[in-house]
């Protein structure tokens, strides 16, 4: 193969690569530089000034930042587990039935196609403590004394947001797991039945091990999206009540676009970036095994 032929695949890839590098690498370098400076955007006359590692020191002592990480992890934990268990369960059910499978799948995918802001609007209406359907429905069941301020009660707010996300994204898990289930070979199940294995045993010892890669990838994809969660919380509580639903994304947004503390934001972004990349690498190693 001569040099010209070997260069051809790169010719196809280069335009995309250039775009990604130009708008990916350059901003990254700029951010690294900015994280060592102090730059308050609400004083436009004062240019960025060097600050050494002050931003990073501040970051380590920042309790709001630490709390936002905790909130994010709690949010991810609850939502991911629920989405996975429910999604896997529904996919198992769908795998069994014969008719209407595609219809159901399409219907279930509707929440996924909505903007997070639209989902936020929909659920704010349902969560409304005075005329929302959720309180009305539970009052029918449990009597007039039932009253929950879904988005305003500090103890409940995060769960409410989890519910909205579960509603919106469980179909994602359903679709992928269903496709995985349908591509499984039949013979192991036939021998298992002959050997007298129960449904539960077939599930635990056959289905789950064979679906290992699919499961891990689903968790990875949803996990990444959940770390990024911002739109829904912005639209529903904006971190309230009292910072109880402030995930990392929201805190970073406030630092940059409410306090306009750009240098500090840059430092925060870098920390989160490194953190996410480490986790991603670990998860990918797990999958590749």
């Amino acid at each position, binding site marked *: 193969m001569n040099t010209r032929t070997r260069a051809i695949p790169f010719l*196809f890839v280069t335009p995309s690569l250039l775009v990604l590098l130009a*708008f990916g690498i350059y901003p990254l370098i700029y951010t690294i530089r900015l994280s060592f400076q102090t730059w308050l955007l609400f004083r436009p006359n004062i240019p960025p000034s060097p600050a050494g590692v002050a931003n990073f020191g501040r970051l380590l002592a920042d309790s709001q930042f630490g709390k936002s990480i905790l909130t994010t992890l709690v949010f991810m934990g609850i939502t991911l587990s629920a989405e996975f268990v429910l999604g896997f369960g529904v996919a198992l059910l769908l795998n069994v039935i014969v008719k209407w499978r595609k219809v159901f799948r399409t219907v279930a995918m509707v929440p996924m196609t909505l903007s997070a802001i*639209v989902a936020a*609007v929909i659920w704010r209406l349902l969560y409304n403590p005075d005329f929302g359907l959720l309180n009305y429905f539970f009052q029918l069941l449990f009597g007039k004394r039932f009253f929950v301020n879904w988005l305003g009660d500090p103890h409940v707010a995060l769960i409410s947001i989890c519910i909205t996300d579960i509603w919106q994204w469980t179909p994602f898990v359903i679709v992928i797991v269903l496709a995985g289930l349908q591509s499984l070979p039949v013979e192991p199940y036939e021998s298992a039945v002959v050997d007298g294995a129960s449904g539960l045993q077939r599930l635990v010892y056959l289905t789950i091990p064979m679906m290992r890669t699919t499961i891990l990838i689903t968790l990875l994809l949803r996990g*990444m999206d959940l770390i990024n969660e911002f739109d829904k919380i912005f639209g529903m509580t904006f971190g309230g009540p009292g910072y109880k639903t402030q995930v990392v994304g929201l805190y970073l947004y406030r630092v940059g676009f409410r306090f306009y503390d750009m240098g500090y934001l840059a430092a925060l*972004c870098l920390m989160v970036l490194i953190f996410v990349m480490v986790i991603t690498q670990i998860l990918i190693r797990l999958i590749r095994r």
Partner: protein
Amino acid sequence: MESALIYFGLVVIAVLFLFPVLFTVQASFKNTIELTTLPPKIFFAPTLRHYWITIVQNATLVYYINSLVVTVASVIIVVFLGSLAAFGLAAFQYRSRDSLSFTILSMRMLPRICVVLPFFLLIVKLGLLNTKTALIIVYTVFNLPFTIYILEGFFGEVPKELRDAALIDGCNYLEVFRRVYLPLSGPGLVATASFCFIFTWNEFLFALVLTSNERAMTAPVEIASVVSLYGVDWGDLSAMATIAALPVVLFLFVVQRYMVRGLTMGALKG
């Protein structure tokens, strides 16, 4: 008997998924007074007042048009660039291929929040703040890794023999791309375009940060700004949400088969 139970359970679940959406659509046709009192009326006289206020009085169509322009433009560019790159990755064998593919994919893993700041500063530096061009660029950059990843999977399914046959017949690589890979990957292109369309149409954070008025602001940002106000009219809000959701839901019904293939292609390929 057992399957009847399963069907019943699935119907319940389907209702749970659909109900909130249908409720909001119904709410957009209800009088505000009927909307904010309990018990909720199932039968009511529908009104178009909220749509009138939204479209005519508040002139919000411009935001939806912005969304449409930005979405269509970026989807076209992304599918164009992405398919070329995916072809470069799928149709050839060379040493750096896997690491190149992986590098591109890992760019998708970057949390959006962390990328907002540098993008914001870059756009300001380019003087493109509050323009549709800035949004198109940003969405192209964001959809590229995912697009390349999915299309690479679809292109990988094209038998190498077809490529070789075309080469022997005297095609150059561009023609191989155009005449062999593209036609055979129709479903993949539809799937990818669908995802990019939905993601871009619904995108919020970057539109929020990079735009400030109707010159470039997209629908989700406008809806969110209304939500933040105290004393919001839920009927108007429901109407805005319905208009925003309508294109993508209709879109879903048309292309859902391809979308499922695209989703599973990305996940099952591993």
